[in-house]
Structure formats: structure tokens, C-alpha cells
């Protein structure tokens, strides 16, 4: 049983490394992935892309070593260890960098990458126990079982890669939101103050006195259909309050009114 399972591993390892190496060598966005990876910190900007391509080439070579019978998993073990080392280095030296492993989508190095590298390592070690022929597990009427194991391992790898999240994780989370309406409590009858300020800032009244305003919104209160918004202003070198009256229930900048009042004696300096 162990040896049967072991003989299947080269297929998964080979497929994964072919995919990953193929992306690094031939992917259209490979230069982008190289630039955002920790290789940039490791070997410098100039050599990031050549190093990235070299890693891709090494991955393809290791894939060939495990796929061509008799399977030789030792290089794959070395590569997984190097991969874990690279991830640890990136985590410490360039925490803002992406893995750049199999896509250019930004994916800061985290637990999932280490889990993925650890899985690659354990598959490679397991492959040591096999007899070296990945065709043999399919014989003896076990083909369906072999396919099921391969599919399960592929699913595990994909669930650990952030680049596939948009196909299953994000739709699942969207479905959850659609079913549970977690932000429903945010919907209230109150008109947000920001809506009032948006109307206010597009009004002729604001265009006229805007130059004299010295502060952000000091306070606001409601009066019937109006919302009053007070700012601090300076008018002819006197400290003043600018009080805007904004219609609360409609977006009508033309109806906005304003009064400037002297802070010393509350006399109206200007009203429009």
C-alpha cells in the first residue's frame, strides 16, 4: 500500500514542477512575478529575472528526473528544502515580497506557502519508498483509486495556492454574504453626514465662502428637512462661524444657504 502510494507521487511532483517551471520560463507575466519576488532582494534587480528563469529551468529538470523511469526523487527533496529555505529568507528579509511561485498575482508569503512547500517535501520523501515506475499503480484494477488519489492531492495543492482563491474561496465567501446579510444593520433611515457635506461642497454658497473657511466640520445638527453644518471661518480678519443649511433628503446643491456670523457678538456678517 505504502509503495503503491509512493509510486503515484512522482506524477504529482512532476506535474506541479512542470507547471511552476513552465510559468517561470514561458509565462507572459513571469517578469512581473520575478520583480515582486524576494529574488530581487536576494540577487538584485538586474539578476532577478535571470535567476527566476534559472529556477524555472531547475524545476523542469527535477520534473524530468522524477517523471522519467526509473523515478529519481532525490533532486525533488533538495528542491523542496531549497524552497522552504527561500520562503524563510523572504519572510525575514523581504516580508513585503510575493512568493512569485506559480503566478504574478500578489501573495505575501504566509502559512499557506510553507504548507505547500512542506507538502512537496513530504511527497518527495514518500516517493523514495516506491519501486520507481509511476505506471504500475494503475495496473491491477486500481486505476480508479489512483486517479482519486491524484485528484485529491491536486485539490489540496490548489487550495493552498492563493492564485486559485478567486475560483472557489471568494465565490464561497460571497455566497455566505448573500445568505447571511452581515452588514444589514448598517442600513438606517439617518442620512449620513458625508452625504450632506458632498451636497454642500458642490453648492454655489460653498464656492462663494469656501475661501474664508478655516476648519473642517465643527458640528452639525438637524432642523426639520434641513441639516445645519458649522465651520470656523475668517471674514475680513475677524473670527467667524460659517453656518450652512443643506436640504437633508435631496441632493440639491442650489438650495444650500449659508450665513457668516461674527464670533464676538454673533452678528450676521453675510448671508446668502
Amino acid at each position: 500500500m505504502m509503495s503503491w502510494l509512493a509510486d503515484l507521487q512522482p506524477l504529482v511532483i512532476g506535474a506541479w514542477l512542470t507547471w511552476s517551471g513552465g510559468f517561470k520560463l514561458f509565462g507572459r507575466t513571469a517578469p512581473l512575478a520575478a520583480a515582486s519576488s524576494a529574488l530581487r532582494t536576494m540577487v538584485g534587480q538586474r539578476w532577478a529575472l535571470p535567476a527566476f528563469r534559472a529556477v524555472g529551468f531547475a524545476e523542469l529538470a527535477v520534473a524530468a528526473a522524477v517523471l522519467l523511469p526509473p523515478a529519481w526523487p532525490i533532486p525533488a527533496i533538495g528542491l523542496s528544502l531549497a524552497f522552504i529555505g527561500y520562503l524563510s529568507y523572504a519572510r525575514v528579509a523581504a516580508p513585503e515580497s510575493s512568493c512569485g511561485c506559480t503566478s504574478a498575482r500578489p501573495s505575501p508569503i504566509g502559512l499557506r506557502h510553507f504548507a505547500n512547500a512542506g507538502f512537496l517535501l513530504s511527497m518527495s520523501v514518500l516517493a523514495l519508498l516506491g519501486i520507481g515506475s509511476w505506471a504500475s499503480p494503475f495496473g491491477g484494477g486500481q486505476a480508479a483509486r489512483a486517479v482519486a488519489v491524484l485528484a485529491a492531492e491536486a485539490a489540496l495543492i490548489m487550495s493552498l495556492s492563493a492564485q486559485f482563491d478567486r475560483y472557489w474561496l471568494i465565490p464561497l465567501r460571497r455566497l455566505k454574504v448573500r445568505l447571511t446579510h452581515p452588514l444589514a444593520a448598517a442600513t438606517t433611515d439617518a442620512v449620513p453626514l458625508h452625504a450632506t457635506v458632498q451636497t454642500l461642497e458642490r453648492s454655489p454658497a460653498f464656492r462663494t465662502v469656501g475661501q474664508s473657511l478655516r476648519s473642517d466640520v465643527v458640528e452639525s445638527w438637524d432642523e426639520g428637512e434641513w441639516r445645519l453644518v458649522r465651520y470656523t471661518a475668517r471674514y475680513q480678519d475677524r473670527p467667524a462661524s460659517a453656518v450652512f443649511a443643506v436640504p437633508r433628503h435631496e441632493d440639491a446643491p442650489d438650495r444650500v444657504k449659508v450665513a457668516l456670523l461674527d464670533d464676538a457678538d454673533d452678528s450676521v456678517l453675510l448671508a446668502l
Partner: protein
Amino acid sequence: MSGTSIDRRQLFTAAALTGAASVVGATALGSLDPDEAFAAPKWDVQPGAPDPNFVEGLVNTITGTRLFVKGSDGVFNRIQVTEATSIWKLTPTTFDKVEVGDGLYARGVRLDDGLLAAESLWVNIVNLEVHVVSISRNQMALDHAGSRIIGHVIPGTTATVYNGTPAISDMSLLQVGKHVKVIGAWRPGTNEIDIATVYAAV
């Protein structure tokens, strides 16, 4: 520093709502000629030098209505808050809501003794470009360049602007995986914010 008294609010309300008897032209506030408007230097900031009328940092101590603030560059500043200062902390609020440990941006007028007479104070304000990672009850997990931020929705305060249209309180159009811009109030010492406004495209 506390809200304006009811009497004064009534006076303000009456002035704003009834005072439009004579429509004064823009010229009442000075010339509209751009040459004249820009002729006198409005700001005493030198090219390349820090703006003297602006202060940022963490509140170190509060004495009366004075704040002692340590900037991110290590420079200490004193800020005087007055009745006329606008104070933002998630919403326009009052001075007693400002606490030691809060981060702030202040704009005002620098006095001769180095004191900043604040005209506006924005406490703990953050402006973040993020991706929505997940949404749970009154809470959003946000990804900001690889860092996780928890955004708390405050019913009655949090507003959403969809496609630049007027803000509404309905947040149901926000989607997991989408890019949004969030203005919020940081909870000091944490990776959590209270959300004031979300800007989203739908």
C-alpha cells in the same frame, strides 16, 4: 469644546435659514481676479521645508486644552485647541474624546512661541486602499498590501459612496474580493479601524 449651546444653535439656524434676504455677490469676499488672489503669499511655507502650520504625531500628554504631540520624525509639538477648532474622530466630535495615545493630524496657525493654534484636528484618521477579504457581522476583513486590517462597521455612522454618488448607509452592494477605499478611525495599538466612509465601484 463641548457642543454649541442650544440657544446659539437656534441663532445659527435662524441666521442660515432666513438670512438670504439680500444675495451678496462673490465680490463681497474680495476680488475674483486670480492675480490679486495669489499675489500675496497665503502660506508661510518655504519650498522643500516642512509646512509650519501642520503637525502630525501621537498624543503624549493632554493638559487642559493643550496637546503635547510626538511626531513620527521624533519632533515634539504643542497644540492649542480652542472653541473654534474642528475635531474629527470618526465623526465631528468634541475635545474630551481625544485621548493619550491617539494619532492625529492638525492644521492651524503657528504662533511665535512655536505653539500651533489648531483650526482642524483629525484624530486617528486613516485613508486606505484595500481589498475586501471577507465580511462578517458588522465587520470587514481588509487586505492592505498584504497586511490584514479589521474594519468595524458602526451602524448610523458608517456611510458608503458608490461610484461617486451621494453617500448612503446601505452597505449591501459591497463585495468580497473587490477593491475599495476606506476612510476610518484607527483604534490605537491595534490593526483595527472604525469605518467612516467606504468608496466603492459597483
